[in-house]
């Protein structure tokens, strides 16, 4: 199974198709990692490894505050969902890491292919 991170779909304009098409966007935490036009397959992969690690640290530091805020607003719902969310968290993080490293490899490969053509 390939790394996916958090997947969203939306209609955005595609340079290659020249019109608005359905796109798939893969996120790791706060970072957009891969975008793909589902009509023509054009994709953008980003190498965000360093920024991902910085972002992960910030997210971990702000997590207690965010949890406290949710607990204040929805004590019952939050407490009820906590065991399931906590159990899933390591797997979600692992999935994010795999997505970030796999996109970085694709971005490097694409960059070196483009460089080869330029030379």
């Amino acid at each position: 199974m390939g790394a996916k991170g958090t997947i969203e779909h939306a209609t955005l304009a595609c340079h290659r198709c020249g019109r608005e098409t359905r796109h798939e966007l893969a996120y790791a935490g706060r970072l957009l990692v891969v975008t793909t036009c589902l009509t023509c397959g054009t994709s953008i992969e980003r190498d965000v490894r360093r920024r991902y690690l910085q972002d992960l640290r910030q997210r971990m530091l702000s997590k207690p505050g965010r949890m406290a805020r949710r607990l204040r607003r929805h004590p019952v719902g939050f407490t009820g969902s906590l065991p399931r969310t906590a159990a899933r968290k390591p797997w979600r993080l692992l999935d994010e890491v795999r997505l970030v490293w796999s996109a970085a490899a694709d971005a490097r490969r694409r960059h070196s292919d483009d460089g080869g053509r330029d030379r």
Partner: protein
Amino acid sequence: MISAVAERRTRRGSAGRSRRVPPAAGVVLASGAGTRVGAEMNKVYLPLAGRRLVSWSLDAFARVPDIGVLLLVTRPQDKDLVDWVLDREVDAPVEVVYGGETRQESELRALRWLSSRIDEGSVDTVLIHDAARPLVSPALIAGVLHEAREHGGAIPALPAGDLVAVDEAGALTGAEPASIVRAQTPQGFRAGPLLEVYERAARDDFVGTDTASVMERFSELPVRWVRGEQQNFKITYPHDLVVAEQVLAAADYRT
């Protein structure tokens, strides 16, 4: 007639503020983008730097002290997403109105929702903003509001120095297009004339390209332009999301 409305009150209220002038209303349009193409997900609800796109605009408006009423115009099918965004990401009180098939119809519904407050003078100016421009700053919103109150109408825009004039055959004419600017949002107008003009446009079946074009067609109210912001661009291509994310990260996630 507004098909359905919901009002949400959260922690930060505007009650208790003493004001010399009535508050202005900020209208954030989030109903148009996907409707035209029948899309399954409206791009204004995409994540951007840890929050949904639309919540960046709502937050910017909420940080302008003179904005006393904040409206989100959305699609009925986005209701669950809207509830989630307002609950998790927006602290300010936001009133939710369902939009129409077109941008102009959505604006009209928002204005009708505000009409009693406009008539009684408790809303003096309305600023209409496209939620697909998430990096609008509170300073720009305040600037547009100030100019709209001063002159009647105001739009933010950037000089378009990269345009060239062509003739009908498509050949360059060499003439420089004079005084052309690229319009942005929010576009602000005195509330009374704005409501009147939108009702008239609806009666005459006139459809403009943006708020200012409808005002120009039916009103003599002067519309001034204020200098827009480079970062207040519209999310159109996937790459725009990457740029917006980097702008926000560089600004420590503040607009």
